[in-house]
């Protein structure tokens, strides 16, 4: 299970059965260049493994106005 906070809405979700950043993006219906996937101080590329207990920030990047 992983926990993600989605910015800018600040919505928090817990998700099961996610093993890579790409799977997380797909689950959230995002393309790889539409959001930063942040774990602590680092950015995760789509091939990175994530899982058990990870707390991530999904920062959507589209600028509005």
């Amino acid at each position, binding site marked *: 299970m992983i926990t993600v906070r989605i910015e*800018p809405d600040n919505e928090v979700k817990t998700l099961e059965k996610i093993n890579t950043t790409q799977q997380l993006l797909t689950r959230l219906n995002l*393309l790889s*260049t539409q959001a930063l996937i942040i774990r602590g101080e680092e950015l995760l*590329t789509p091939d990175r493994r994530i899982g058990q207990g990870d707390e991530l920030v999904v*920062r959507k*990047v*589209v600028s*509005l*106005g």
Partner: protein
Amino acid sequence: MKCRRCKELAQIALPSHHTAFCRDCFERYFIRQIETGIRRQKMFTHEDRILCALSGGKDSLALMWVLSHLGYDVTGLHVDLGIEGSSPMARGQVEAFCQDHDLKLVVVETAPKGLGIPEVYKALKRPICPVCGKIKRYYFNKTALEGGYTALTTGHNLDDEVARLFANTLRWDQSYLSDQGPALPAEAGFAAKVKPLYRVTEFETAAFCFLKKIPHVKAPCPYSKGASFTSHKALWATLEEKSPGSKIAFYDGFLERGRPAFAALEPGHGTKLSPCRTCGYPTSVEWCGVCRLKRQVAGLPPEAAEAEE
């Protein structure tokens, strides 16, 4: 994924460039893209006095950081739009950034001039973003003009430029397609207008701000439902994912081949500009758009009516 340059673990994958970078190599890449844009489009030199419009968002703050890092003579400009909740946050972010990095900043408040966005919205009851854009451009240009700045930079990135170009292509807007681009020369008393981020995407500016620990506004403006181009951006994200490199190819192709073709069709710049009778801002009519807007918001009759009396 490994960094293409140093083979460390990559933090940023850039499918458009068939590459991936670690933190340090990405910073180097990002700054180089901006330097390349400045050089190719002959935007400005180290002799210029540059005014950098700062909204408090990731793009403009990343731009200001890079320009000062490259040793340009740059001053920030923030236009405080008087929007409850969002404007104080944006302004606070900009002020903190400039203070932390020891950068010069000019702040212009629109509310005391009768042009706070909530009041304008109430008075006009039509989509506010185009009007807000006009007010911001007015204060960008006016501040540049009065302060003797020779170049005005904004944080428009490749996604913004592609979305705008796409919208204008869908309409075959000949006048836009003949003379728009990332570098418009100084003209009729206006400073040169340049967009040094036109080669980097909003994903890249967001990554840059994260890696350089530049705090920025993330919440959208409360009026942004009317913001243009969001659906075009989504379309382009899909296209780019399927065929990486499409965005920059579309935009570069326009600059190299599209624009010259449209420019050949346009009969030169017809409209002559003269100073606004109230504020001195260059305009093609007697009173500039913002002076007319001010009176409208204040519920006064147009200037022309009064002048005739």
